């Protein structure tokens, strides 16, 4: 007989357990989750409880006040609390890019960023690419080149392309192949996405 809770699959050893197990000290969790930035060095060692906190998020130009536990990831806050479901849960561990959003203009995987870490930052989801009457050129190009099939990876891919074009206007096709490797599509839409990205990049940043 075995009664080893760590031997469970399903909810056993995953990111959320790790976050929870590592305590609720924001500085500590930020250090493990935000490897791409050095903000942990400057952040004061604020200690907070594991219960729900008031978390203020700036999303698509609007301010939202939510009550969230520190362990809640940005992905869940966007999807479940704000109903911004362009941000898809697919791999749940920074492998596939389906949850790509822009934070302060840079593409970020929302599945491995705590919502509480994102306070004071400018968060843009793919829904923001619909502006007034029209849509961002990236969206037009995805449709024109059929850079989608089932569409589940598409919003994340479109946001990755938006961020890529902002950072690399006039990128070549080879640049696009290298720069858009952070997103996975299962239906196999890479050919359409590549053409869409290349043409959007020629239009420059947004």
């Amino acid at each position, binding site marked *: 007989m075995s009664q080893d809770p760590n*031997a469970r699959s399903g909810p056993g050893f995953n990111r959320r357990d790790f976050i929870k197990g590592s305590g609720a000290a924001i500085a500590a969790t930020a250090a493990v989750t935000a490897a791409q930035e050095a903000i942990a060095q400057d952040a004061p060692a604020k200690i907070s409880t594991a219960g729900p906190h008031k978390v203020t998020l700036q999303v698509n130009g609007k301010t939202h006040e939510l009550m969230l536990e520190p362990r809640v990831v940005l992905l869940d806050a966007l999807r479940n609390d704000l109903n911004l479901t362009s941000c898809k849960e697919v791999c749940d561990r920074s492998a596939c890019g389906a949850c790509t959003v822009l934070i302060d203009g840079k593409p970020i995987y929302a599945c491995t960023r705590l919502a509480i870490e994102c306070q004071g930052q400018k968060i843009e989801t793919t829904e923001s690419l619909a502006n007034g009457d029209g849509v961002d050129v990236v969206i037009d190009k995805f449709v024109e080149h059929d850079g989608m099939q089932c*569409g589940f990876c598409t919003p994340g891919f479109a946001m990755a392309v938006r961020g890529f074009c902002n950072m690399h206007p006039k990128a070549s096709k080879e640049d696009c192949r290298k720069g858009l490797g952070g997103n996975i599509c299962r239906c196999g839409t*890479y050919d359409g996405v590549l053409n869409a990205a290349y043409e959007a990049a020629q239009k420059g940043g947004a």
Partner: protein
Amino acid sequence: MAERTIAWPKFGQAQILGKDTPRVYDGAKKALGLAKYAADMNTPGTLFARLLTSPHAHAIIKSLNVEPAKQVPGVKAVHVFRGVDTEVRWEGELIVAVAAERPEQAEDGLRAIAIEYEVLPHWVDDFDLAGAEAAKITDKGEPLKLTKSQGNQKKGDVEAALQEAKYVHKGTYGSAVITHMCLEPHGSHCEWKGDQLISHLSTQNVSGTAGQFAGPLGIEEAAVSINCEFIGGGFGSKFAADEWGIACAQMAKETGRPVRLMLDRGTELKVAGNRPSSLAEVTVACDADGKITAWDSNHWGTNGTGGGTVSLTVTPYVYDPPNRRRTATGIVTHTGPQRAWRAPNHPQACAYTQTAIDDLAAVAGIDSLSFVRKNLDITGRPAVYAAQLDIAAKLMDWQAKWHPRGKGQNGSVKTGLGLALHTWGGAAHAATCLVKVHPDGTVETFLGSQDIGTGIRTSIGVVAAETFGIPMTSVRVHIGSNKYPKAGPSGGSTTIGGVSGPVRRASQEALWQVLDKVAAKHSVDFATLAVKDSKVWSGDKEVCTWKQACSLLGPMGIEVRGEGPKDDGLTSAQVGGVQMAEVEVDTETGIVRMKKMVAIQDIGLVVNRLTAKSQVLGSLIMGIAYALSEERIMDPKTGRFINADLENYKLPRIGDVGELVVEFYEPESEYSRGVIGIGEPPVISPGAAISNAVANAIGVRVPILPLTPKRVLDAMKGA
């Protein structure tokens, strides 16, 4: 000119049909993330479910206490799938679902559950036939035989043919188990309104799943509403309500709250379907001219606990030599059950057949393309393949690039060419379409169908707009509800024929009714009437606008139903396709890079060129995935699927697929065959074509797909 005959426009005369039409109805919606999938349903009060699954490949649940989970803050429902004394037969088998106010609370609930298992011996090796025969495994306490014969068939005189053959080649070939890896996992959002169940289900089977809920729930099928406007991938794995769908509905009933239950990524890969493996020992022979005379094969593999493998019936694949013997054995493994995977059986059979035949060509000293051409007479579509090979060879520049096996460049990086052929049915499924023509000239179509990513919504609009002579924007296409007229499940490449036939029939009938009114009102001959650019014409004379014509229908407009399939020539079946691959192999690292793939696909009549082409492009990429990188890896010691995630289950990314060239084979003779589905056939050839290209590059065969660096290096060491 209006003729009262159900038919497609004459070759070359269509306005929209066969052109490149973007997804005008839902393209931007999908790209913007405004399209709502089952996984996105978020009605007020929705509870989120999480799953406790078996960590063991084979065990008996000895104790289970879910009471502590019910005390966890936020937890509202606990559903037990498998209780004490139940035997679980694969890692990931569902045991308990917990629904809570927030997903993280549901996970807290799972952690509070106390469970004990008695772990039993398991078997997860799908290629070790002798080991499987010797293994001591029990099931419900009884000894379990792990190998199951899948048949043994013979045609002609194989022994005599092998004796007489000029060249005989023996080899072993195979492909690993792969999963569907739908990016939207299986699952649903269920909500009750009185006695009505409203299920947003991620399904390829909108019209066929209500009963699967109704039966277990003890309610009338009419009380079940199935909704699926969008589905995030299915590939053959999403035809059922599944036990987790029923559990979702039950928890919603119990709590009086909506519940969303989507499988987590690991569970999705472990329990929601996979493609069976196969390893084949092949002997294949030809005469001095390179004509294949004999095939003898024995293959085995697994489809999970069912003890099946790739079907005998597609062995050898495409080629049917006069003398043939085929034997297969399935191995029972403690792994999740198979589900239909895009073109079931064909990719694996293509891989072990057309690699063996390519090796025979090398033994006979005949180049791969010539060898295939010599043997087209033993295929089902010799003339089509011959024409396609010519087109493909030109697009690949085969003649200029070809070198005999292993005789390419010096240096560590070698390039190679390979090819393969495939076949598929693609006949229309059963469906009914309701077409409404409104007095203002707008048109609506209703079908209980689904768009699994093929762009079927757009294709329906193309057929209706083409038929009525109006723009796509004047047609509203409704799919994704079982309350619409029934349409078949999207499997077997049956949907495009299944829906386009009924839409065309209903639309033509409705058009004739409108034109009858116009003929009477304006005293013109019906036979002279046609609609183009939203105007009704009698010959080259404009009679009235389409809107004015429809105003003659009275305030109720008209409704017409079209059915299918019918034997009126709108749809048919059977296609062939040819693919060629060019690869680059780094012989120091074993890494294979795709340089180029060419796909020539027989398709019949093209409805929407843009989205049809996307199906072929997607197939090539999915083929590159199973040819080069993706496979399920089972740990023999623990019985676990150790790469059930998207980091270690390797899929190609945007820079990994090389140049992809797609062309349809569509002379008038093909157009006149009507609509045929091609979602599956182009995914069949890549495994064999790429493997043949790698063999051509490095001079030895890498026997098993995917051709990972390790397998490439191992094959070269053995050479």
